[in-house]
């Protein structure tokens, strides 16, 4: 492939600097100076230190699906000749800037495939998400820093997966070999680095091969739809699995494939906005109806729904695609260390036993 360059470690900063002049650049970095372990994707600015040696605490989800965004603005106008009559004007103009996300991991990039199906492949297309998606490129690391909470291989991905990525960033001695994978990626990296030497290319090939063979996560969590349906009504199972849950919502906030949102209007005097903001199925109010009835009144119902959504309903609707990328963030950030791998793994295991 034509677009291969080598960026040395000491030239990384200047390369990122040059890139940020061409396009909005997002990189994983620390979110607080004295808390190096707390990382997320932030807009590049001079002096920032990219943290590429571990998975970020927060995923790059907000780049394509902001936590809050304005869907439309509205303005009321009064007719001075007829004070009872109010008229409204609407405006849904949205600014979308081309962007590059540098330093994401395969799990992060793969997660957007689930969002793509939901937001752009249904009977209705979400133009806000679609426009951002079309204008954002992903330069994804070949990942060699899986930890004990990672399980990308269990959900149909892997540490060298390139699905959803435009560039592959391969760590080699002294720097990175960057491989352009898509047409729209090719043009961006021209003149930003040297052509890799033969040795570097060989090493890159080796790294990719070795990483592709590495299995992250022992379980196989695919094909859980039937097992989930079988255990749906088994209250004891969900009690045992989710009694520790605080219904706090952290898992949904740090999850790259969680996308549920709410729409609320805010008005001041005569003008206002309709906002779209992240919501969480873990919250009581999520499904609370105006009549006061709540189809998921208990945290156990809600946790069951979360597991079902990712491992049963999404695969059912989208040709077996699992609505989980195996990044393990929910496990790491959960205050009570609930392990979703266990919950889904035991669904299948015990379902077999009961037959």
């Amino acid at each position: 492939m034509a677009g291969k360059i080598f960026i040395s470690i000491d030239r990384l900063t200047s390369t990122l600097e040059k890139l940020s002049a061409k396009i909005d650049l997002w990189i994983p970095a620390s979110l607080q100076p004295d808390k190096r372990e707390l990382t997320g994707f932030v807009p590049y600015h001079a002096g920032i230190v990219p943290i590429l040696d571990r998975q970020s605490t927060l995923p790059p989800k907000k780049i394509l699906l902001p936590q809050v965004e304005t869907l439309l603005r509205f303005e009321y106008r009064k007719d001075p000749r007829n004070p009872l009559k109010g008229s409204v004007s609407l405006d849904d103009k949205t600014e979308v800037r081309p962007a590059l996300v540098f330093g994401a991991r395969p799990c992060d990039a793969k997660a957007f495939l689930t969002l793509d199906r939901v937001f752009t492949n249904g009977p209705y297309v979400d133009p806000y998400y679609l426009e951002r998606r079309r204008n954002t490129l992903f330069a994804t690391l070949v990942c060699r820093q899986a930890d004990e909470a990672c399980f990308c291989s269990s959900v149909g991905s892997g540490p060298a997966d390139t699905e959803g990525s435009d560039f592959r960033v391969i760590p080699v001695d002294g720097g990175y070999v960057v491989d352009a994978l898509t047409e729209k990626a090719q043009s961006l990296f021209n003149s930003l680095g040297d052509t890799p030497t033969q040795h570097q290319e060989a090493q890159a090939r080796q790294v990719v091969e070795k990483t592709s063979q590495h299995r992250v996560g022992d379980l196989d969590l695919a094909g859980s739809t039937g097992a989930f349906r079988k255990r749906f009504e088994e209250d004891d199972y969900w009690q045992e699995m989710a009694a520790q849950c605080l219904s706090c919502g952290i898992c949904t906030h740090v999850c790259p494939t969680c996308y549920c949102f709410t729409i609320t209007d805010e008005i001041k005097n005569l003008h206002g906005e309709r906002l779209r903001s992240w919501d969480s199925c873990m919250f009581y109010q999520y499904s609370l109806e105006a009549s006061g009835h709540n189809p998921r009144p208990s945290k156990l119902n809600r946790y069951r729904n979360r597991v079902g959504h990712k491992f049963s309903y999404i695969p059912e609707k989208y040709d077996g695609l699992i609505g989980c990328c195996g990044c393990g963030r929910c496990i790491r950030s959960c205050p009570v260390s609930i392990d979703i791998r266990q919950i889904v793994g035991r669904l299948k295991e015990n379902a077999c036993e009961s037959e």
Partner: protein
Amino acid sequence: METDTMQLHKLVDEALPELDTMIGWAASYDPLRTTPIFIREAKSIPRLIWSPFCAQNLTGYLVKPPALKPADKHKRIGICVKGCDSRSLVALIQEKFVTRDRLRIFGIPCRGTVDWRQVMRQVPLSHVRSAKVEDNLLIVDDAGGTHKLNLEDVLARKCLRCRYPNPVVYDALIGEPTVSRITPEDIYRDVEALEKRPLEERLAFWQSELDRCMRCYACRNACPLCVCQERCIAETRDPKWLTQRMGIPEKFLFHFIHAIHLAGRCTECGECERVCPMEIPVALMKEKLNKIMEEMLGYVAGLDPTAIPPLLTFNPSETGI
């Protein structure tokens, strides 16, 4: 620690027939953390552990929906509590969320619990194989080898200022009583350090911290005393208090209302700060309010089950005002 765990097993085993459920801590996927366990059968008792990794305050499960209540009115709920957790129990008893005689309390004197995020800050660990505390060291084995860290560098902030390491209420005590790590004059030193800074700096501090807030409401949900959570002002639309925007004003309002609802009630168990995925020192706000309570009204929350928190009652002859 092992002897404490064994003692715990023995006592729980003896008590189990009269218990509907026993709430304690068990090992999780990560040696640096534990997960709560709800025991109903003797065969699960060996999973119970006590160690400095048992950070979570379990008392919330007694009140948050679906609150654990014995189905059989002759049975009780067993629960493990450290010093800080026992104060939460006292607060729940004071406000009549739980009744003392329905609880069987296993109190555990505690010298502090490990904050795994602080460990990660010192050494970026991967594939932790084992972790233990010996004297004043945390010894961790991971893929990179063995690491020895100063215990005081990895304890939760609340533990460094803990003045009630021994449970204030219990039916059985596991292990021996211990001494506090802090002198009474230094209890509010974190708050005082912040108070010394000029107003602009304090404002900048909170703006910077709250900027990271994701409005996940984990702090609210983890707090055993925050009981309006299903009707929380942060989410209700009728009446509407907050927009869904992620601006500092919205987050300030949520955090300060939450803190004010806890004024005079918060027992400083530190759960709010422990659970925060963005590592915001939210407990500082409650500590400040508690400092005012103590200085003005001479009241410390969660010590006397018969006391009434000052803001929940009207005392015509209030001293200190």
